[in-house]
């Protein structure tokens, strides 16, 4: 197995794959972490901080629903959408690239035996 790993490691497409997928993972992960930090900090520093104050304000005159609730709801939906987007990319384009790399490396390594 080790020689196939080495073979893959030599393939420039493998580094393209790890770069692309890594960039997407970290981008999406930082969006999620940013959101949860906003949420946690808004809870921690309400109502002093300006980024938190409007969380307690109603979304309209005389309405019970506040911005905080709307944001919480949007974040929940956002997480699901981000997960779906990642899977769309990873199970499609990234997996195709990965399969091609593995197939080539297995063939090359097999020939070399």
């Amino acid at each position, binding site marked *: *197995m080790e020689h*196939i790993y080495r073979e893959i490691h030599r393939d420039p497409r*493998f580094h393209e794959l790890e770069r692309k997928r890594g960039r997407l993972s970290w981008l999406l992960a930082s969006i999620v972490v940013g959101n949860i930090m906003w949420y946690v900090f808004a809870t921690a520093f309400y109502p002093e901080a300006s980024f938190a104050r409007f969380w*307690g304000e109603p979304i309209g005159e005389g309405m019970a629903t506040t911005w*905080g609730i709307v944001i*919480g709801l949007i974040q929940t939906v956002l997480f699901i959408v981000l997960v779906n987007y990642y899977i769309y990319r990873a199970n499609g384009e990234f*997996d195709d690239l990965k399969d091609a790399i593995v197939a080539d490396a297995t063939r090359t390594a097999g020939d070399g035996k």
Partner: protein
Amino acid sequence: MPRSSATPRATPDVGLRPFPRGVGPGAAVLACPADAAAAVSGGGASGIAIALFLLFVSATLGITWWAARRTRTTKDFYAAGGNITGFQNGLAIAGDFMSAASFLGVSALIFSFGFDGLIYAVGGLCGWPLVLFLLAERLKNLGKYTFADAVSLRLAAVPIRCMAACGSLIAVVLYLIGQMVGAGKLIEVLFGLDYSLAVSVVGGLMMIYVCFGGMIATTWVQIIKAVLLLCGATLMTWLVIAQTGYSFAGVFATAIERHAQGPAIMSPGGMVHDPISVISLGTALVFGTAGLPHILMRFFTVPDAREARRSVFFATAFIGYFYILTFIIGFGAIALVAGNPAFLDDAGALLGGTNMAAIHLARAAGGELFLGFMSAVCFATILAVVSGLTLSGASTISHDLYANVFRRGTGDDRAVSISRYSAIGLGIIAVLLALLFEAQNVAYMVLLAFTVGASVNFPLLFLVMYWPRLTTTGALLGGILGLTTAVACIVLGPTVWVEVLGNAQAVFPYKYPALFAMIASFSGSILGSLFDTSERGKRERAAFSDQYVRSQTGLGAEGASGH
């Protein structure tokens, strides 16, 4: 005698035993039904609840029988043969996560504090996208049955497995005690069973599921329960909305009218006031999720990384939906239960403590029939979650410790029988501990389980996958530091030091130690690895490249067993 739901009940004898209890923020959700030693249906259990419960038990025993016939290999036992689909696994993961604790506990927190209860929902949910983006597929590609497989691939197997097993077993046992005590209390109340009998019934059933049906039975029990819980919560939300004029705004408006704090329940700041505690709680919720062994183990039940990813999608969607429902249910409980004298004691506190909010609401919104249904669902939930925990603990003992440490290299293939004995052992230990800790507030144990997940298992898993320089020495140092910091902070913190041991002042001022324990663990691993100049350390760093290719491509990983 079980009463027919059609029989009108004499109100006074409904016998809602007053058991008022102050709710500690955060304690509720994790300890949950633990403190819920409360009365809902008084003297006898409702006939509906018992009938539905018996139906569930016979269905799951049937599944166990079916699963036992299909469990032929080690892989079937630990990982359901790797034949679970992404959708099924997503439901099972959601089931593991939607414990009775999170259903009753989160709705209780919202009932008490309004908006702030939502932090458990958003915090718990956001762990899942992170698991997907950073861990899931690498974990699947590296591991076989437990997450210790993945972390011991390039590090020294014996010490690392011992440490991972230690982290897993501590987390599992603590979580198990919390769920068992909670289960006992809840069943005592809902079905009128004696506490010790209730705990033994739960322990006995979970041993049967795990011993005979292994992962196949455990997964299907979890799936059925997840579907039941999702349906129950959906129906309940619908009933609540129907009573407040078919609009969410109507639920909120009624809740504001009824709650003592008025409009303040719609804004943050009701529950936890000090920023460090909020951040530390957030850390435990987000990263603890990614370090709980019974959840990590689920990624090995699918055939490949592709299905592992899909399972996270379904899990996230179901958990997100479930939390939105729980959120509305929490506010619905304020709207329909808080103002109703039938659910309050003389002092105006909720009967049975706030953890009973959702159960009371079931009755307020849907009558006895629905109360019976939700009681049975809560019971099923507990049963499914403790089975998952037991299986994960048993796999740790038999696969990690027995097969790969004690009998390493001997070709001993009795791991599955060992894990059956371990399941029985764990079941007995869990029942005994549940009896021992009956009177305890178990919040800190479950909190410790999350903290151990966040400070031992998660850093180890993350660093082994992402940091080439990590060595065995560093990993061990980090794990030990993380664990001791977590334990020390819990023992010296307000929950144990003041409330349990009765000291006046907490040595460690914060209730949630996860942030500190996680920092200790990461620093220990990083420093230990950087100063490790041994030959073994060099080899381990050199091995990263192969491990990396495998984690990215899945080449050499375990697939489905194909039957």
